[in-house]
């Protein structure tokens, strides 16, 4: 198991470097490239000069890439002039919101989607199954932004049940920790529902098809022939097997989840990396864009790694391959 994790970690490195290379290549092509506005004004003149030399636009592309990479490894992703702060700090301020939103949505999706998928599969072609299938088709087809706007209009604007934007009521700025936390959770309810809805649908569909396949397999017949109760047959024997592909879905859904978070943050004006990156585009803040992309790529890769490890944990056959 340990070897497996180490091997997967080693496999991630070239992929990550490849993505960074492509990203840097793209952004280097942009007018007013990264190299011109990466400097932190609080740096000493010597450091500035050194960095200037390293990222000189006249240098060959690959040299600039490796110089940028070595700086990035030290945590220096450049400076965001719009925020008057280093890129890494700006991202750090905003990533918590995105992370919380995605995590809550993912948990909602799993807690609702997986059981619904199991019920749908065990009662195939029943009224419940058809109803859930229609709901999941709607969930997959309803774009995040449209669903978000609908909820925003009906629940927040018209019925005033939820706040319209932001992560916190400014009046609570000086409140104690628990009030603040409660207020933030309250602000996250609608965005999490919006983001979670589509994810519920994909978890449900995936669980359903995975369960259907497993339920028809020979070992489920064996389990029934052994005299086990239907509950144990479905929730222990079938589900343990159906879980194997579902676990990989968690990794696969990460890029989608992040895309969804970008849209959701924009609609609900949440201070997350999604909204940050849309702003970065309009202000041509390339160091910030590059930094966000690098961070999200790393998060995605890490997510697939976690999924792979979970996969090995639920499927005994993996460890030996």
């Amino acid at each position: 198991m340990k070897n497996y994790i180490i091997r997967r970690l080693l496999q991630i490195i070239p992929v990550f470097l490849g993505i960074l290379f492509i990203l840097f290549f793209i952004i280097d092509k942009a007018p007013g490239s990264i190299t011109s506005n990466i400097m932190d004004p609080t740096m000493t003149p010597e450091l500035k000069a050194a960095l200037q030399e390293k990222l000189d636009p006249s240098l060959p592309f690959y040299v600039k890439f490796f110089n940028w990479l070595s700086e990035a490894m030290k945590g220096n992703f450049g400076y965001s002039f719009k925020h008057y702060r280093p890129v890494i700090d700006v991202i750090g301020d905003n990533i918590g919101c995105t992370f919380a939103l995605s995590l809550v949505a993912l948990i909602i999706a799993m807690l609702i989607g997986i059981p619904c998928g199991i019920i749908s599969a065990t009662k195939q072609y029943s009224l419940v199954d058809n109803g859930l299938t229609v709901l999941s088709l709607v969930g997959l087809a309803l774009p995040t932004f449209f669903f978000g706007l609908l909820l925003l209009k009906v629940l927040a604007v018209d019925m005033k049940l939820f706040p319209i934007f932001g992560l916190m009521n400014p009046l609570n700025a000086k409140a104690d920790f628990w009030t603040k936390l409660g207020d933030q959770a309250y602000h996250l309810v609608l965005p999490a529902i919006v983001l979670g809805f589509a994810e519920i649908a994909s978890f449900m569909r995936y669980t359903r098809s995975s369960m259907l396949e497993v339920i028809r397999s020979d070992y489920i017949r064996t389990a029934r022939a052994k005299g086990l109760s239907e509950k144990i047959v479905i929730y222990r024997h079938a589900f343990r097997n159906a879980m194997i592909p579902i676990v990989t879905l968690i990794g696969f859904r990460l890029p989608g989840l992040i895309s969804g978070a970008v849209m959701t943050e924009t609609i609900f004006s949440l201070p997350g990396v999604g909204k940050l990156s849309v702003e970065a585009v309009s202000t041509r803040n390339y160091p910030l864009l590059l930094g966000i992309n690098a961070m999200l790529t790393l998060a995605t890769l890490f997510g697939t790694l976690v999924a792979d490890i979970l996969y090995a944990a639920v499927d005994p056959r993996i460890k030996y391959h």
Partner: protein
Amino acid sequence: MSEMMEKKPLLEVKNLKTYFHSAGGLVKAVDDVSFDVYEGETLGIVGESGCGKSITCMSLARLVECPPGKYEGGEILFDGQDMLKISDAELRKIRGNKISYIFQEPMTSLNPVFKIGKQIEEVLRVHRNMSKEEAKKEAIHALDLVRIPNPERIVNEYPFALSGGMRQRVMIAMALACSPKLLVADEPTTALDVTIQAQVLDLMNDLKKEIDTSILFITHDLSVIAEMADRVMVMYAGKVVELADVNTIFEKPLHPYTIGLISSRPDMSTTSDRLNVIPGNVPDLSDLPTGCAFNPRCPYASDKCREGISELVEVEPNHFVRCYYPGGEKHDGN
């Protein structure tokens, strides 16, 4: 044979009908099948694939998926209870306990994510209320019984670590763990190599004597039947066409289909280098010919066979045949 009749039947199947309602129409997979299994005997069921022999056996413990399957009628009397009428809870007490199954595919019949030991222990804990430790001890004993070397190590292995033959032994160990009264073996050796096949068959014959269980043995392989069965039931297109003890079937088959099966075996004693085959194909169960389903392939078929089908008649003591012309005797019109 006569002393067999004095024994009381362990299982009585009467007019069992298991149908499938599919998009392509009604499929009568098991159509009015009746037979008995006596204590301590091995009844073999032979037939081509798709003749309903597997569905017959699955019906015994209501293992057929419903829907699309449906038990349309008949009785399955086991231990004085009608298996088609008892509640699910009562049924579960019988499955794996009094009636056990071994399936065709050892590679897929064991749950891939659970250890061998756990899968055997499960049966014991459900039916024998054993503690975890007792069950584990018993599982090791069961593996030992089916001659698996190193049972203490094997209980901690996952199925994928074992060969097909080994897995089938595990299946047998699991099926016999609760000393069932009836063991249903659905083509247990078909997927195995010939040498492994012989070993597994020997093992089953030995264990049958040790545990004193009845066996319902399904196969399409006549040589396996000859080795295993006391009596043989031949099925064609969902119906029993002939039922007799094993020597009678091989020496004096009466149904034209059985005659065809017996004569299509490779025969070492003749110098003929051609195999006899039954002409035609296995019929499509959703689109059976009228009358006797075998009539398009039967050399003796008459108009009578195309219009109706014979009852299962006891033509001589304990030899039942469903044919108007048992033994292929020529009839007037031909």
